């Protein structure tokens, strides 16, 4: 088939770099980092920080779910903490009521949360922006109220599994291979890695392309043959699934769940740190989780009230929105590269400029 103009080279150019060296390098770096976190980190940290890092693993997945919604599809949800609470509730109930293997419970709570979370996403089919944020926030508030009434399961009987008369409340069980805190930290990291891989597989393929189109322009997406309704619900389903799984890990991490641990305003803080980390990037989710869970642990250990973080996050969001809309995940490497160029450049020029005397 002939072509117009000069170009027939698109195909050759495509063949030219089939093996992308930088992508391999990046994958290798991620692998090494993962090995370090799994093998070395538990040896280096005290139990206090290991627990904090387990929370980071959980909230990295929650932040990732919100990142998919905001960064990829352009849907603002302020209900993700409530979705996490649903996941935690469901898996706590299953862990007390059944002797199912732990991964099966995680999968089941992911699927159940996916169904419920997609219902939270239904308003998104008609709304965007501020109104969607408001509706999801109200829904999250409603879920918090319900949870405060029914409480989290604590080994009691019946559908709700709650017994207010217990003196010794039994702990939520952990998998046999991950009973200790360091072992469970590793378990949480592996689960988080699997969830990141699941999301990566989505954004790199058909749904990811469809989401990018929807985020930029719904008419363009429709004209490309994309079923916008389906793909929006798909995004909510994926975000809810991974958040539900994270809820299961959280339940076994803390071992006792209380409804006051899931206040509605946490969803707003989550949005703030996701914006700071970078909603579009997978690394942004890790940064968001470090800001949300590790930083308070650090401050507490230093004797500084973690409440200060509200102010820090406020300033941080303002900083990111004005100077780096894609968050710290992009800003930090970019600024480091700029700094490096500056330092390297100055090093080279110093003899000429300063005469080498200083």
């Amino acid at each position, binding site marked *: 088939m002939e072509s*117009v103009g000069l*170009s027939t080279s*698109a195909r050759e150019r495509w063949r030219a770099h089939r093996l992308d060296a930088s992508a391999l390098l990046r994958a290798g770096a991620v692998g090494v980092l993962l090995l370090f976190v799994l093998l070395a980190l538990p040896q280096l940290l005290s139990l206090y920080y290991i627990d904090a890092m387990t929370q980071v693993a959980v909230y990295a997945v929650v932040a990732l779910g919100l990142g998919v919604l905001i960064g990829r599809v352009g849907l603002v949800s302020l209900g993700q903490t409530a979705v996490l609470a649903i996941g935690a509730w469901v898996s706590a109930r299953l862990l007390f009521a059944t002797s199912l293997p732990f991964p099966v419970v995680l999968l089941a709570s992911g699927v159940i949360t996916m169904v419920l979370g997609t219902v939270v996403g239904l308003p998104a089919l008609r709304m965007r922006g501020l109104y969607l944020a408001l509706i999801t926030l109200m829904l999250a508030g409603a879920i918090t109220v319900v949870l405060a009434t029914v409480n989290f399961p604590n080994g009691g009987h019946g559908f709700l599994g709650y017994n207010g008369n217990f003196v010794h409340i039994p702990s939520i069980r952990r998998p046999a291979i991950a009973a200790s805190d360091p072992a469970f930290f590793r378990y949480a990291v592996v689960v988080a890695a699997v969830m990141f891989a699941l999301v990566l597989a989505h954004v790199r393929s058909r749904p990811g392309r469809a989401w990018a*189109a929807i985020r*930029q*322009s719904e008419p363009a997406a*429709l004209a*490309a*043959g*994309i079923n916008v309704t389906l793909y929006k619900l798909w995004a909510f389903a994926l975000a809810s699934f991974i958040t539900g799984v994270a809820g299961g890990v959280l339940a076994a991490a803390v071992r006792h769940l209380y409804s006051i641990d899931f206040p509605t305003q946490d969803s707003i803080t989550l949005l703030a740190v996701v914006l700071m980390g970078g909603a579009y990037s997978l690394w942004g989710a890790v940064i968001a989780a470090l800001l949300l869970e590790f930083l308070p642990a650090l401050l507490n250990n230093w004797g500084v009230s973690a409440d200060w973080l509200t102010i820090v996050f406020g300033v941080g969001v303002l900083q990111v929105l004005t100077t780096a809309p894609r968050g710290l995940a992009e800003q930090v490497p970019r600024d480091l590269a700029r700094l490096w160029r500056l330092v390297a450049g100055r090093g080279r020029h110093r003899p000429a400029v300063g005469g080498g005397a200083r």
Partner: protein
Amino acid sequence: MIEVRGLTVRFGGVTSLQDVTVSFARGTCGLIGPNGAGKTTFFNVLSGFVRPSAGSVRAFDTDLLRLAHFRRARWGLRRTFQTEQAIEELSVYDNVAMIHEHSRLSAGSRRRDVLEAIAFVGLDLDPRARVATLGAGQRRLVELARAVVGRPRLVLLDEPAAGLPDEETRHLREVILQIPSHAGALVILVDHDMSLVRACCETTAVLDFGRLIASGPTEEVLRDEQVIRAYLGTEELAA
């Protein structure tokens, strides 16, 4: 063959299209008229973004209006937009592949078809380049590649040359001219550049205030008294 009968579109009290009956036979057909004449509304009806209050559209023996909007791409309807809508976040390749994967076409031929479409429009660049890094002319070509990939039956081009320098318009003209024979599709071209319309379109229809005021062979239509009064004359005055 596209047969439009009695098409009427009302937005509240405004009638954007009034009882338009027109047909487009083959090759590239022009659709012209002053701003606000209803050209884009006409395209929006065909692509399913606007539901007409009356009328029918038969396209190659399919009742187009009965297809859900997102299914029309699968049927073979492609369009470009007045403000170019290539997806910035994606690579050139992914932009074009996206249409292919939502059509009923085999995934086995995807890479070949996509690269062929990119080559057809004359985009001389690495298909992995992100659209955000491209200039306006190249983005238009990405949109055109999206319009010709796979097996389009009806291609709607909404002012493809708007805002482009002369040289790029010339290249665009070459591409548009070849779409019917290359892709086997019927092309409807909306543009204000009369030299482009003259060069590309055998037949042309003219809309004014939502009504069809002329249609037929392009040269005849452009000589039509009413068309000159309603549209072309005003352009000359403005110039």
